[in-house]
């Protein structure tokens, strides 16, 4: 049974931030180069970052707050995209 909203309710989110496809990914390029030197076959590497957020409040509200945080602070829309995931 689902419980009703509790005051201390916590929700975890994950924000996956990646360089925009059209933008040069300098880190990915450097890692790829090293892997090639180590003898791995040609591969594509892209390097992003992952941020975990823990927010309090009703799920919908928390999610929209997380969305806002990711949108305005965690990613730079000029050079990055992000995916917001809700975690257990």
């Amino acid at each position, binding site marked *: 049974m689902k419980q009703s909203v509790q005051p201390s309710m916590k929700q975890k989110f994950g924000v996956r931030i990646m360089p925009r496809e059209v933008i040069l990914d*300098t*880190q990915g390029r*450097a*890692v790829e*180069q*090293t892997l090639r*030197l*180590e003898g791995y076959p040609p591969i594509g590497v892209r*390097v992003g970052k992952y941020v975990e957020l823990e927010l309090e409040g009703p799920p919908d509200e928390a999610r929209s707050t997380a969305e806002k945080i990711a949108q305005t602070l965690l990613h730079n829309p000029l050079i990055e995209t992000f995916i917001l995931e809700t975690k257990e």
Partner: protein
Amino acid sequence: MIGIVRFPGTNCDRDVAQWVHEQGDSYKFLWHLDRVADLSSFDALILPGGFSYGDYLRSGALAARSPVMASVREYAERGGAVLGICNGFQVLVESHLLPGALVRNENLRFIDDWVELETVSERGPWGENLAASPPTLRLPIAHGEGRFYASDSELNRLEERQQVWLRYVDNPNGSRNNIAGVLNEKGNVAGLMPHPERAIFSWMGSQDGRRFFARGGTKSHAGRG
């Protein structure tokens, strides 16, 4: 003869060459792709500062996996004297030739400044060289990821075994135990964040960088495997 290891992105290689030259020693550059079977003809190896492989992923992480580092490891295991400066220190740490980790400065910014250092351990060729002179020295720092980190137990072990080589008098970057430089257990491998090669003439602001070489270069101390 001193071997100076260059990775793509190393940028203090020429400065270190000037430093070695000023000490009256000769040098040879080693390229990151060189897998040299025998480095025993070198009196010491130096890994200069810079941004090897752009410092991408983690500082020093990609360089630590380059072919030349396998040769450096063998040289170090045979007791050869190895010194890593700034990014070279990060590479040695990433190669596990030196303990700990170097993470982003506490203020999350690159810091260029002058620092006062205390010599702590006098072990090994690098420790001995500095021991011969006053207990403090003045050198410049220039790094974004120079905060020395190790777990409590590891820090205790380092202190006990006298592997802490240099300490900041005024901690600029949040390093644990004010650590600016460390040694390996044997004392033949050393790493430090400050740049001794940038303090070798009075017009540079300090000549304390000259104290890292014993009289007549490092020859007397170098292990030849």
